[in-house]
């Protein structure tokens, strides 16, 4: 059952990823990208990471995609849809196929190993995924967390400055 569900969601994710790349109108690409984000959120739930699925939907499918759609509609890009919209298809196809073959080769050949942690399914179920993430963020990863807040502040100021009328 889980296998069938996995393949179904994977199929939808890959097809909508393909639509992101192939759709001529940017609005259609954006909607296909939202579809991909939801499929990835489903994967995160299947991987016992419900908090990540929630912020995937809220931050990516909510905030970032709304921002992108706003800009698409602000710039009114649907009017130039009839022209050529790609370049260098052959070389790009070769390059991305090489990337794919390379990665799949290594996935088939290698084995995933690494330092095992101590976060078991039982711990996630009893303690809660969000609590575990919060504890890790505020103890072990406190400095990166603060740096991320400074990054967001800089991004806000930068966006306001860049989008002003007379740069």
């Amino acid at each position, binding site marked *: 059952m889980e296998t069938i569900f996995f393949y179904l969601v994977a199929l939808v994710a890959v097809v909508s990823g393909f639509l992101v790349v192939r759709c001529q109108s940017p609005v259609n690409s954006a909607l296909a990208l939202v579809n991909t*984000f939801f499929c990835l959120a489903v994967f995160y739930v299947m991987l016992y990471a419900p908090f990540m699925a929630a912020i995937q939907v809220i931050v990516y499918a909510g905030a970032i995609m709304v921002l992108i759609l706003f800009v698409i509609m602000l710039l009114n890009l649907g009017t130039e849809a009839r022209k050529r919209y790609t370049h260098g298809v052959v070389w790009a196809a070769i390059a991305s196929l090489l990337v794919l073959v390379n990665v799949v080769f290594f996935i088939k050949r290698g084995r995933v190993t690494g330092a095992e942690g101590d976060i078991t399914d039982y711990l996630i179920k009893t303690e809660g995924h969000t609590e575990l993430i919060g504890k890790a963020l505020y103890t072990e990863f406190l400095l990166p967390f603060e740096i991320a807040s400074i990054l967001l502040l800089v991004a806000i100021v930068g966006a306001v400055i860049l989008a002003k009328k007379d740069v």
Partner: protein
Amino acid sequence: MSVYHYLTVSAILFALGTYGVLTRRNAIVIFMCIELMLNSVNLTFIALSRHLNSLDGQIFVFFVMTVAAAEAAVGLALMIATFRNRETIDVDQINLLKW
């Protein structure tokens, strides 16, 4: 489902994103393809984090999302500024710095 299935899906999505970045001419669509690649890497992180019983990968995903949000804000502001000056965001026509 083993971790290899998730890694394969993520590889396919990453290759699709690469193809989009290299072929599309609209800067916003290139931007969306970059988001697709970031998301495929996020899937890799979470699959490996589950496989290794560790939370570190998920913390990384958290920071990748933060950086992606900052990148979206600044990148889209840049596109608006470019469009205001050049009346286009076609990357074949924004070639002032091209050799």
